[in-house]
């Protein structure tokens, strides 16, 4: 066993114990910007084991990536093509067995999805952008324009991701946090940065830029759909609605109809000016 290292994403720290020095070195490189020397609190301790020839689910070319998550009491059992693991939510420990060529990222996303839910936050399938020191989240189903808004903003803002970000309440206010997880946009920095969250926008491509308000129920429903990996138990769903409602009430969730040009930012700026 090698020395464990600490991964800090959105202020939530996970201790990771790799099996070999080489694997440890690879992960330290991969997650360099999110590694810390110490932490006041460790939210999860993950132990990794590598297993040769681990093949669990049949892989069919062209299909959506499949990860089976089953909850039994306080434990989540995760199975994907070449990995399987257990997350013990009560004891805050996790074990992961994976084939040599497989990375831990899929499993880490699941861990952090649950840890965020438990810590006044959400791991959201969304584009996250920091502009003039303020955080903006753009979300919607595949094809709605997350990557487009990120690419259109690349010259004038910091793109945290076009795929996954964390929003979390700290010191009484929601913040947008970058994550080290890969999205579609290769040039997205996966920056370890945060900013006060000032808006969440449900994207719809249209012929003109326009912001429309959503009812609180609609906002909660729209946000609930874009929180991946959380096994939909009644208790988790209650917490999901609680956090989503708080986001909608304190930050605001609106629908942004937009064309494929960066002028949507003017519409957002004008809207923020009217509510401030």
């Amino acid at each position, binding site marked *: 066993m090698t020395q464990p290292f600490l991964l800090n994403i959105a202020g939530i720290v996970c201790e990771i114990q790799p099996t070999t020095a080489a694997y440890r070195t690879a992960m330290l490189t991969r997650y360099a910007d999110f590694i810390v020397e110490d932490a006041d609190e460790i939210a999860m301790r993950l132990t990794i084991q590598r297993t040769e020839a681990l093949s669990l689910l049949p892989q069919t070319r062209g299909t959506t990536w499949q990860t089976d998550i089953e909850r039994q009491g306080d434990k989540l059992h995760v199975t994907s093509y070449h990995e399987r693991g257990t997350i013990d939510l009560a004891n805050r420990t996790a074990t992961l067995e994976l084939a040599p060529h497989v990375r831990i990222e899929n499993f880490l996303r699941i861990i952090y999805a649950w840890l965020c839910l438990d810590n006044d936050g959400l791991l959201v399938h969304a584009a996250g952008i920091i502009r003039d020191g303020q955080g903006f989240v753009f979300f919607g189903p595949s094809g709605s324009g997350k990557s487009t808004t990120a690419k259109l903003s690349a010259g004038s803002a910091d793109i945290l991701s076009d795929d996954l970000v964390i929003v979390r309440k700290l010191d009484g206010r929601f913040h947008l946090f970058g994550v080290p997880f890969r999205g579609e946009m290769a040039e997205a920095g996966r920056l370890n940065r945060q900013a006060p969250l000032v808006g969440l926008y449900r994207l719809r491509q249209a012929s003109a830029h326009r912001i429309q308000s959503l*009812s609180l129920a609609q906002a909660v*429903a729209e946000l609930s759909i874009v929180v991946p990996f959380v096994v939909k*138990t009644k208790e988790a769903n209650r917490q999901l609605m609680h956090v989503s409602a708080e986001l909608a009430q304190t930050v605001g969730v609106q629908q942004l109809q937009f064309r494929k040009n960066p002028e949507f930012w003017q519409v957002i700026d004008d809207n923020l000016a009217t509510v401030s």
Partner: protein
Amino acid sequence: MTTLQQFPKPHAQTAGRVFEGEAVLILADTSEVNVLNGVGSRIFELCDGEHSVEQIVNTIVTEYNVTQEEAMNDVTTFIDDLVQQNILTVS
């Protein structure tokens, strides 16, 4: 078919909450998210295991100024539909 003497309540795996008169439901089994309209949200709110279908019908008659027949038809159809979707159960 739901009867007037039955007591509907949310399915064990359904999380539901009313926000400003609109109910959001998340079904654990399918991960489906639904938003109910005003009347549907009020009916769902009353399906708490403590109101019979008859009591729910009477409440809808009073609050929405509709006939007994209209309310009975709407309430029982709505509850039947939600039972079929495993959103509600009846006892």
